[in-house]
C-alpha cells in the first residue's frame, strides 16, 4: 500500500515554479529521501505535504487522507521535525514535550508514558529538566526528533535533519532514524542536500532539481545505473575525441577542469586510457557516489554550502530573543 501519493503536486510563486507536477508514490515503512540542492523545491514539497502551504494545483494523499480536503486528519497522521529550531529554549526539554502532548490532545497517562519512552530513545532522560538553551545543537535536534515521534505518527517528516551539525552528532541522529524505521515500521521522509546522508539512510530516493524529479530509485540502483567505476583525470589539456573513441567508456563529463569517465572495470582499462590521453596531472579511480549520480543527470555538482545559513547559526540567532 502507498502511504503517500502525490498527484501533479505543484507550487508556483510569483515568478518561479518551486514544485512542478510532482508525482510520487511512497510505500509504507520505507525511508524515502528527497535529495537536491538548496532551492530545488524539497522544503516546499514537504510544507505542502504537512498542510502548512496550500498547493497551487494538484494534491496528495497521506495515510489515505487528502492534504487539501482533510488537513486535520493528515495532521493527526504525521510528525515533523522542521529545518529550523522549533523548540522553546526557555522551557526545559520535558516541558517542550509536554506542550506537544497537549497540542496533540494526548490523554495524561499516555503522554507521560510516551515522554519517558522517547526521551529514552534519544538519550535525553538525564537532561530532561534542563532548559533547552543549555542543550548542544545535536541534543536539541534529538529533542525535536523525540517530539516528532511522541504521538506515534504513521509518517515522520525530517527536513534536513542534520543540517549544521558536527559529524559525530550526525552519526548519532542517523542511528536513531535507522532504529526508528526498523522498530516502529514508521514511514520516514527525509529531505537533505547531503549525499552521504541520503546514501546511508534511504531505501529509495528521488533526486529533485528545479522542482522536478530528475531520477528515482534506491541509492544502490542509481549508482549501478551509472555503469561501473569512475576515473577522474586532471590535465591542462585533454583530447576528448580520443577518449570518445574508446568503446568501453560509457560516459564522459566535464567539471571544474577535470574529466570524469564512467566505465566498467576501470583497473583493467586504466593503462590504455593513460596511454592515449597523454600528459596528465593526476588520476583517481573510485566507485560512483550519489554526487556522481546527481552530476550525471543534471550536469552540475550539488552545492554543499547553505546560503540560508546553517541550522546552528539560526539556533544562535534565535537565542537573542530580547
Amino acid at each position, binding site marked *: 500500500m502507498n502511504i503517500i501519493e502525490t498527484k501533479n503536486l505543484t507550487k508556483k510563486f510569483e515568478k518561479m515554479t518551486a514544485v512542478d507536477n510532482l508525482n510520487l508514490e511512497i510505500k509504507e515503512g520505507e525511508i524515502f529521501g528527497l535529495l537536491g540542492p538548496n532551492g530545488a523545491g524539497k522544503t516546499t514539497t514537504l510544507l505542502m505535504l504537512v498542510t502548512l502551504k496550500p498547493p497551487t494545483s494538484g494534491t496528495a494523499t497521506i495515510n489515505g487522507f487528502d492534504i487539501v480536503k482533510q488537513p486535520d486528519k493528515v495532521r493527526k497522521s504525521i510528525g515533523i521535525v522542521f529545518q529550523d529550531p522549533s523548540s522553546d529554549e526557555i522551557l526545559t526539554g520535558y516541558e517542550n514535550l509536554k506542550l*506537544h502532548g497537549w497540542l496533540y490532545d494526548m490523554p495524561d497517562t499516555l503522554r507521560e508514558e510516551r515522554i519517558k519512552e522517547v526521551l529514552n530513545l534519544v538519550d535525553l532522560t538525564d537532561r530532561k529538566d534542563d532548559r533547552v538553551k543549555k542543550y548542544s545543537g545535536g541534543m536539541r535536534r534529538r529533542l525535536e526528533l523525540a517530539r516528532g515521534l511522541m504521538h506515534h505518527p504513521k509518517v515522520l517528516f525530517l527536513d534536513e535533519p542534520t543540517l549544521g551539525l558536527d559529524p559525530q552528532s550526525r552519526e548519532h541522529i542517523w542511528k536513531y532514524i535507522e532504529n526508528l524505521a526498523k522498530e516502529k515500521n514508521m514511514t520516514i521522509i527525509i529531505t537533505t542536500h547531503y549525499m552521504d546522508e541520503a546514501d546511508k539512510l534511504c531505501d529509495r530516493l528521488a533526486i529533485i532539481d528545479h522542482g522536478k524529479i530528475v531520477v528515482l530509485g534506491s541509492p544502490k540502483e542509481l549508482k549501478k545505473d551509472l555503469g561501473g567505476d569512475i576515473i577522474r583525470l586532471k590535465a591542462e589539456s585533454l583530447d576528448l575525441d580520443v577518449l570518445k573513441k574508446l568503446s568501453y567508456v560509457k560516459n564522459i563529463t566535464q567539471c571544474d577542469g577535470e574529466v570524469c569517465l564512467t566505465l566498467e572495470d576501470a583497473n583493467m582499462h586504466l593503462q590504455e586510457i593513460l596511454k592515449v590521453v597523454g600528459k596528465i596531472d593526476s588520476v583517481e579511480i573510485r566507485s560512483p557516489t550519489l554526487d556522481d549520480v546527481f552530476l550525471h543527470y543534471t550536469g552540475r555538482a550539488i552545492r554543499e554550502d547553505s546560503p540560508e545559513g546553517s541550522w546552528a547559526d539560526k539556533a544562535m540567532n534565535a537565542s537573542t530573543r530580547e
Partner: protein
Amino acid sequence: MSELKGIYALWYRETKVFLRERSRVISSIINPLLWLLIIGGGLGAAVSFGDIPYQTFIYPGVLIQTALFSSVFFGVYIVWDKKIDFMKEVLVAPMRRTSVFVGKIFGGATDTLLQILILFVIGFAFIAIGILPGLHLTVVSILVSLAFLLVTTVGLVSIGLIIGSQMESPEGFQLIISFLIFPMFFLSGSLFPINNLPKWLAPFIYVNPVTYAVDGLRCVLLGSVFSKFNPFIDFGVVCLFAVIMILIGTYAFKKMKL
C-alpha cells in the same frame, strides 16, 4: 476538548516563559514607576488638580500605559516564533488557528495582568507612606479595575498579534508599533484631564478606545468627578473594541503566511 487543551498549552508556554525571563518582569515594573515618580512628582510640583495631587491623578493612566505597552509589544514574540520554526510546530498540530490565537491572547493577557497586579501592590505601599493620597484602592475597586483592564488588554494584545502575524522581522514590528503605541498613549488622556480640550484635539481623543479605559479607571479609582463619561459607556466601548479586535485577529491568523 482538544481545542481547550491546545489553548491551555499555549497559555502555559507564554506564562512560563514570561515568569522565567526576569528582565521582562523587572523592566515592566520599573517603567511605570518612573512615570509615576518622576513625571508625576516633577509635573505635580507645578500643577494641581483640586483635591488630589497630580501623581494620584495619573495613577490610572500609568496602569493603562503599562497594559498598552506590554500588550501590544507582546505581538513581537509571534514574530520570533515565526523566525524560528516554533510557529510551524504549533500550526501543524491538529488544532484550529482560532484556538492558537485565543491561546496567545490568554498568554499575553496573563503577562500584562501580572504586571498590573504588581502595580496595585506598589499602589498600596505608596498609599501607606502617604505618596498617593486620594487613591481608592479597595477590593471592589481593584476587581472592577481588573475587569476594565482585562477587556482592554484582550483588545490590545489582539492588535499586537494582528501586526505580529503579518510581519517578518522584529525590527519592522517595533517600528510599526512605536508609530501606533505612542499616539494611542498620548491621545488617551492618561496624563491630562479630557474635560476642556482644544477643539482640534478632542476628536482624536474620542476615537481612541484607550481613552475610555482611562476614563473608566479614573471613575473607579479616583471618583466620578474625575471622569467624563458614564463608566458603563466606558465599559461598553472597551468591550466593543475588544470584540472587533478579536474578529480581525481571527481573520489575520487564518491568513497568516509562514
